């Protein structure tokens, strides 16, 4: 599964993208955020308040309760400030 990060999520994690293989018990977006948070202080800092993190799966917005399913690309980013 490819993960992509934007804005301060990208800066705090220190990566623009990476490929991960989460364990089988990581089923929902929420699970994924929790699992990532435990991967090191940079992840912990980026995901300290997971409720503000927005997530898109394969270019579509999803809720934290949604399943990850067969996602190819999961994006994590702060609330958007375009327009």
């Amino acid at each position, binding site marked *: 599964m490819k993960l992509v990060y934007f*804005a301060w999520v990208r800066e705090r994690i220190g990566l623009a993208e990476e490929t991960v293989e989460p364990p089988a018990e990581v089923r929902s977006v929420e699970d994924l955020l929790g699992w990532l948070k435990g991967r090191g202080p940079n992840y912990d800092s980026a995901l300290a308040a997971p409720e503000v993190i927005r997530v898109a799966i394969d270019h*579509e917005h999803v809720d934290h309760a949604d399943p990850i399913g067969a996602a190819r690309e999961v994006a994590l980013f*702060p*609330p958007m400030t*375009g*327009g």
Partner: protein
Amino acid sequence: MAPEPVVPLVRILAGRIEMAAEIAALSGSGAVGGVVTFSGYCRDEGGRLEALELEHYPGMAEREIERIAAQAAERWPLTGCHVLHRYGLVKPGEEIVFVGCASAHRQAAFEAASFLMDYLKTRAPFWKREHLKDGTTGGWVESKDTDSAAADRWHRL
């Protein structure tokens, strides 16, 4: 039977937006009654700002705006719908975003353009960061609760 919704034109670009050309294209044919446009600008923040940097999610930005624009074209009887959004560095006074809606009914054009802006603000994957004149990089611009509230009102109609 309602006519087919118009196919919106969506463009994500690094360069300037040629607004006169967009408006001309929207008004084009002699069949258009009115065109409503919104253009959003980079403010100079009292002279402190050197530029805004707009980061975007390349794969998703265009798709998400196309989805929003298609919703607008379904909901209002538009004869044209153009949405252009810049990324990269934008100088104070320059445009960041352009939305143009053409319709035979001016109220439809006003509502569609307003809806598009509310949704762009809350759903289009762009993030702004300030670059200051003193050479430092300022913070990421925070999202506004008022923008979420503005987008939510379209559910209640």
